C-alpha cells in the first residue's frame, strides 16, 4: 500500500469541566494512507468531531486538552509543534471542512477574499492578479460554474451546495496532504449530496490526498470510504475495509448499527433497535463501554476493557467475544 500520511496513536482528549474530566476521546489509533478515504462513523457525542479538532489542534480553550498519544503528520509530530508552527501547517498540510456551510463562511467578505486568505498566508502570494488567478483555479477545481463572476459573490448569494464547494475550495487551496471532512454533506439535499461526494472522489483521484471522512451515515460511508472505523463513547471498536464492515462485521455494536438503519433495497417490518443510551463520558463503565447495551454481553465485559485484536489483515476489533 502507499505511504502513510497521517498516523494517530492512542490519542486521548479530555475536557476539564466543573463536573470533572470528560474523556471525549479515550485512546484512538488509526492511520491514513495517500489517496485513501478513511471513514470515522459513530453516533453523536462518540468523539468523532473531537478527534478531528484534536488533529487540527483547534480544541476549545480553556477546557479541551490532548492528554496523551501521538499524531504524526507526514513525519512531523503535531503535538510537539509550537502554536506558530502549527499555524503554518494548518491549512497548508492539513485542512478541514465543517458540517454547516451557513456558519463556516464569513458573511461580510466575498468568497474570493476568503479563498485568497490561506493562499496569501501559506504561499506568500501578494500580487493581486496572481492571487485572483489562484482563487479562480481553486473555484474551478471544485467545479463551481463561472468562477470569474462568483469570486465577487458574498456567501448569502450562493446556495448551500455552492457554499459547501467554496468551503472545499478554501480547504483545498494549498493542496494539503490530509483533508478532514466533518459531516460535509449532512446539511445538503440528497441529489446535491450525491454531486458533492462524486466531486470529492474526482478530486482525490487527481491529488492523492488522504481524507478523514467523519459521518454518521452508513450510506455515505459505503459510497466514499476505503476503510472505516466505528467509534463508540470515545473509542474505536472496529476497523476494517468498507466492504468487510458491511458484509462481515464482528463487533456487536457495528452489527446493531448496520441493522438499525433502514435499507432502501429491503422491506422489513421491524427495525433492529439498540436499547438504552450511550454512557456518560464523565463516568465511564470500567469494562467495555458498550457492555450495558450489548446483546452478547458476558461477565468479563463489565470488568475489563477488551484489547484490540487483529482478526485478519486490516480488520481489528475490540471485543471479548472475538478471539
Amino acid at each position, binding site marked *: 500500500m502507499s505511504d502513510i500520511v497521517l498516523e494517530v496513536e492512542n490519542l486521548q482528549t479530555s475536557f476539564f469541566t466543573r463536573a470533572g474530566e470528560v474523556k471525549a476521546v479515550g485512546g484512538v489509533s488509526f492511520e491514513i494512507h495517500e489517496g485513501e478515504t478513511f471513514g470515522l462513523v459513530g*453516533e*453523536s457525542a462518540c468523539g468523532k468531531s473531537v478527534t478531528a479538532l484534536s488533529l487540527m489542534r483547534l480544541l476549545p480553550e480553556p477546557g479541551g486538552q490532548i492528554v496523551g498519544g501521538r499524531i504524526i503528520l507526514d513525519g512531523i509530530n503535531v503535538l510537539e509543534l509550537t502554536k506558530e508552527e502549527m499555524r503554518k501547517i494548518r491549512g497548508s498540510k492539513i485542512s478541514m471542512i465543517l458540517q454547516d456551510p451557513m456558519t463556516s463562511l464569513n458573511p461580510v467578505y466575498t468568497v474570493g477574499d476568503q479563498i485568497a486568505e490561506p493562499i496569501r498566508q501559506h504561499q506568500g502570494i501578494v500580487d493581486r492578479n496572481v492571487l485572483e488567478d489562484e482563487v479562480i483555479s481553486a473555484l474551478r477545481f471544485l467545479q463551481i460554474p463561472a468562477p470569474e463572476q462568483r469570486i465577487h459573490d458574498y456567501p448569502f448569494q450562493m*446556495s448551500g*451546495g*455552492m457554499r459547501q464547494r467554496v468551503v472545499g475550495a478554501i480547504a483545498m487551496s494549498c493542496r494539503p496532504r490530509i483533508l478532514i471532512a466533518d459531516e460535509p454533506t449532512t446539511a445538503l*439535499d*440528497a*441529489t*446535491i*449530496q*450525491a*454531486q458533492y461526494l*462524486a466531486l470529492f472522489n474526482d478530486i482525490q483521484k487527481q491529488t492523492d490526498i488522504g481524507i478523514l471522512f467523519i459521518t*454518521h451515515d*452508513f*450510506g455515505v460511508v*459505503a*459510497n466514499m470510504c*476505503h476503510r472505516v472505523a466505528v467509534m463508540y463513547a470515545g473509542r474505536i471498536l472496529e476497523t476494517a475495509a*468498507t*466492504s468487510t464492515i*458491511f458484509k462481515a462485521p464482528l463487533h456487536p455494536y457495528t452489527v*446493531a*448499527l448496520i441493522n*438499525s*438503519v*433502514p*435499507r*432502501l*433495497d429491503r*422491506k*422489513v417490518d*421491524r*427495525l*433492529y*433497535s*439498540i*436499547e438504552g*443510551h450511550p454512557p456518560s463520558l464523565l463516568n465511564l463503565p470500567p469494562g467495555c463501554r458498550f457492555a450495558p447495551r450489548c446483546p452478547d454481553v458476558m461477565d468479563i465485559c463489565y470488568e475489563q476493557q477488551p484489547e484490540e485484536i487483529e482478526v485478519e489483515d486490516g480488520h481489528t476489533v475490540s471485543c471479548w467475544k472475538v478471539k
Partner: protein
Amino acid sequence: MADGLLLECNNLTKHYPVTKGLLQRTIGYVRAIDGISFEIERGKTLSLVGESGAGKTTVSKMILMLERLTAGNILFEGRDIYKLSRHQLKREYRPRVQSVQQNPWSSMNPRMRVRDIVGEPLVVNTKHTRRQIRTKVLELLEQVGLAPDQADYYPHEFSGGQRQRIAVARALALNPSLVVLDEPVSALDVSIRAQIMNLLKDLQDQYNLTYLVIAHNLATVRFMSHTVAIMYLGQIVEYGETEYVLQEPLHPYTKALISASTLTLPEDQEQGVEPIILSGEMPSPLNPPPGCRFSTRCPVSKDVCLREMPELKKVENRWVRCHQ
C-alpha cells in the same frame, strides 16, 4: 368517496405574492405548491418526499390549517375543511389532526414539565377533571415508553429520542385520526431512529392511526409508508404504492433520488452500477421553467420537455408526471 378514505387533497395550490416598493405592489408569485392532489386511506401512511424547497412542509401546514390555500380543497372524511365553521373546526377537525415536529429541541416549552406538555391538549380541548388528565398523561407516557416518574421532569432532562417520544405522546393525547409527522426522525441518532420508527409503527397498528409523513430519506419512507408521493418544485412527479415506486421508479427524478440514497459498496461500483448524478440545482419557485419543472436537470430531457408541462398521468400502477 371510498369508504376507507380519510383525507383527500385536490389540486392544492399555494402562491405567495412577492411585493416591492412603498405601495407593496405585487410583482410576482412564489409558486410554492402548484396543483397537488393525493389521498390517504384510514390506517395507512402516505409519505411526501422531496428536497428542501419542494413544498412538502407547506402541504403539511395547509392540512394543519396553519396556512390558507390559494386554490384547491382538502376533504377530511368527505367534508371540505375550509368550509367548516370556526366552532366545527375547533371541535371536529383540529383535535383529530395532530402533528409531531422535526426538531424535538424546539417543539416544547422548556419551562413546562412533561406532565403539562402532554396534558395541555386535554386542558384546552376537553372538560376532563385534573385527576382524569393526570391519569391520562401517565397512560400516554407509558404508551410511548417513558416511565411515569419522569412526568415531573423538564424537557432538558431528556435525550433527543426521549423528547420525540414526549412529542408523540402529546400528539396522541386527543386520540387523533390523522397525525402529521414532519421529518420525525431526521434530528435523531441512527440507533434512536430505529426505536422511534418502531414505536410509530406499533402505535399505528394499535390505534389504527393515519400518518402523513414528511421525509427526505427514502429508506425511512420505505420502512414507514404504504404510499409515497415524490415532490419536486411544488408538484408531485410520481405517486403510488411505496413498493412499486421505489422498486421500479419511472420518473427520472425518482430514479436519481433512489440512486442518491442507495448503498453502493466499492465493489458494486466496479461492477458498473453507475450512480446517477444530477447536474445543477432546483430552480427558484419564483420563476419556474416553462415546461417540465425538472427539465433543467433531467438527464433524458427532450425538446417537448422544455416547452410543455407534462400532466400527471396514470401509468400501470402509479401516477407519473413525465413526457416519456
